[in-house]
């Protein structure tokens, strides 16, 4: 019997069947036994050519295109675009419009965080959690639908303002919904912080130190969970965030548990902010006049999407179409951290580490290929099987 243990090398590509995301990726993990030794990410699978398409459409048509960069955070994309174009045209949306923009942005954050919470619960094999959080999420979807007429892609923004107003009945229903969601969030925070099974999958996993987070340029809740105080809402307040400031939620542990807690605690900030906006909604117009042609120039706009900093760059040549539009989304900043963090971890933790950055995680059909040195053809695993592998792995540990 051969007792000498050769280190085994496997290469595990995940993807490219991952095209749901703004930045769908192909991840290749090299593993030694159960431990990941190398990770590579490759992007570009759902590339639709939006930036190019935007150059061929007018400023107003682009608004609807931009909103569909991502269905989960559609409002914030449109908001960043509107703010940048308004900046170019030297137009400022009226205060009431800005407040409504922030209101919808925070409602969107709530829906996005609930969605993420459910999906990462699912990745951990905690399907009950998934179903409950999605049930509760319907409450905020109701609010958004009542407010804007759509469940997804709300089209709340127009260039120079917003499209709809709030009435007393809507304000009352938002308040009711927020109260309910706040109570549920408290419950989830409790589950995330105390459930033994869940903690096993999150505590001490994927730890990212503050220095690492800064070097890798992590953004959003992922960075804040590593104690990096970075939040565009605070650093460079846009829309109505000057009048309605938020507190930055920080955590110094930097592991998955911290990322869960930061996101959940952020929700309380959102609830608080929404109540404040409803209490002190400024009156006045909803839109400002916007010229059809935007003066030549360049503008950069940063906003805080649910997943982190979102950056828009627009160049105008004075016509009715943009000359160049550049979008940088938060997931691309955070992906580097996944590549780094996965190294040294169990393969079983990979799904959770990936889910931890909230990479717009709605797709399911990733495939995983395991290649061994003596079996070059490799073995295909679906993402589901990898997920199951993680769940089983931890079940075995328990025994």
């Amino acid at each position: 019997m051969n007792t000498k243990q050769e280190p085994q090398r496997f290469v595990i590509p995940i993807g490219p069947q991952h095209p749901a995301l703004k930045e769908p990726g192909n991840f290749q993990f090299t593993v030694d036994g159960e431990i990941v030794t190398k990770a590579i990410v490759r992007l570009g699978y759902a590339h639709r050519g939006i930036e190019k398409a935007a150059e061929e459409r007018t400023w107003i048509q682009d608004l609807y295109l931009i909103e569909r960069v991502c269905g989960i955070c559609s409002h914030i994309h449109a908001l960043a675009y509107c703010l940048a174009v308004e900046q170019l045209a030297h137009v400022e949306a009226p205060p009431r419009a800005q407040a409504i923009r922030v209101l919808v942005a925070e409602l969107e954050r709530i829906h996005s965080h609930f969605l993420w919470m459910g999906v990462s619960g699912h990745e951990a094999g905690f399907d009950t959690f998934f179903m409950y959080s999605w049930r509760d999420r319907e409450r905020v979807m109701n609010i958004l639908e009542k407010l804007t007429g759509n469940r997804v892609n709300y089209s709340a923004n127009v260039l120079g303002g917003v499209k709809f107003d709030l009435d007393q009945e809507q304000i009352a229903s938002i308040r009711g919904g927020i109260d309910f969601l706040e109570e549920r969030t408290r419950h989830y925070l409790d589950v995330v912080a105390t459930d033994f099974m869940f903690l096993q999958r999150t505590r001490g996993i994927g730890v990212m130190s503050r220095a690492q987070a800064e070097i890798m340029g992590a953004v959003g809740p992922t960075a804040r969970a590593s104690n990096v105080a970075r939040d565009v809402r605070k650093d460079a307040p846009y829309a109505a965030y000057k009048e309605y400031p938020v507190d930055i939620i920080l955590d110094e542990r930097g592991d998955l548990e911290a990322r869960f807690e930061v996101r959940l605690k952020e929700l309380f900030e959102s609830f608080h902010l929404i109540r404040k906006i409803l209490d002190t909604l400024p009156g006045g117009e909803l839109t400002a006049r916007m010229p059809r042609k935007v003066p030549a120039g360049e503008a950069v706009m940063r906003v805080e999407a649910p997943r982190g900093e979102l950056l828009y760059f627009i160049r105008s040549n004075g016509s009715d179409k943009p000359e160049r539009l550049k979008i940088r989304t938060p997931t691309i900043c955070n992906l580097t951290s996944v590549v780094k963090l996965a190294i040294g971890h169990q393969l079983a933790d990979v799904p959770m580490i990936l889910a931890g950055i909230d990479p717009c995680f709605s797709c399911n059909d990733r495939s995983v290929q395991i290649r061994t040195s003596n079996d070059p053809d490799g073995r295909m695993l679906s993402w589901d099987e990898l997920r199951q592998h993680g769940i089983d792995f931890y079940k075995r540990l328990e025994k």
Partner: protein
Amino acid sequence: MKSHQNFGQQLLKSLKDWARVSSPWVLHFNTGSCNGCDIEILATLTPRYDLERLGVKLQASPRQADILLCTGPVTRQARERLVRIYAQMPEPKYVVAIGSCAISGGVFRGCYNVMDGIDQVIPVSAYIPGCPPRPEAVIDGLVKVLASIHSPGHKIPSDILEGALDPEKVAA
């Protein structure tokens, strides 16, 4: 004797139809959509709308799926994968195009990297319009597909698949 055989076949067919209609397994594939349609499909499966009460089960493997739910305008990279998934599904198979993108390319129509709709690549049995369609619309569309399984004469031309697998024919 002949009627005997016919009766047997009839029985078998109705049994199969019954099984298919009572518990269709669906596979969800995203061909480059904006996520909007996908979160609505997920919402359809979760407690508020609870598609599972119709026996629908979300399945990860194409080899066990009856119905393929497609979203997105089909990016060039995703096309090959879509065809492969379609080829892997056992007969009879049904494809539902969900959302404006999947129907015609929607807002992305004409972008250099998209194919402008699922039916440019594989045959589609049902279209559910909307950007994104509401969960109720998704349920309605699926129910109609299930009803069509009963109706005779519903057949998916297999020759299209051969064409779909040949990149040159597709490009033409």
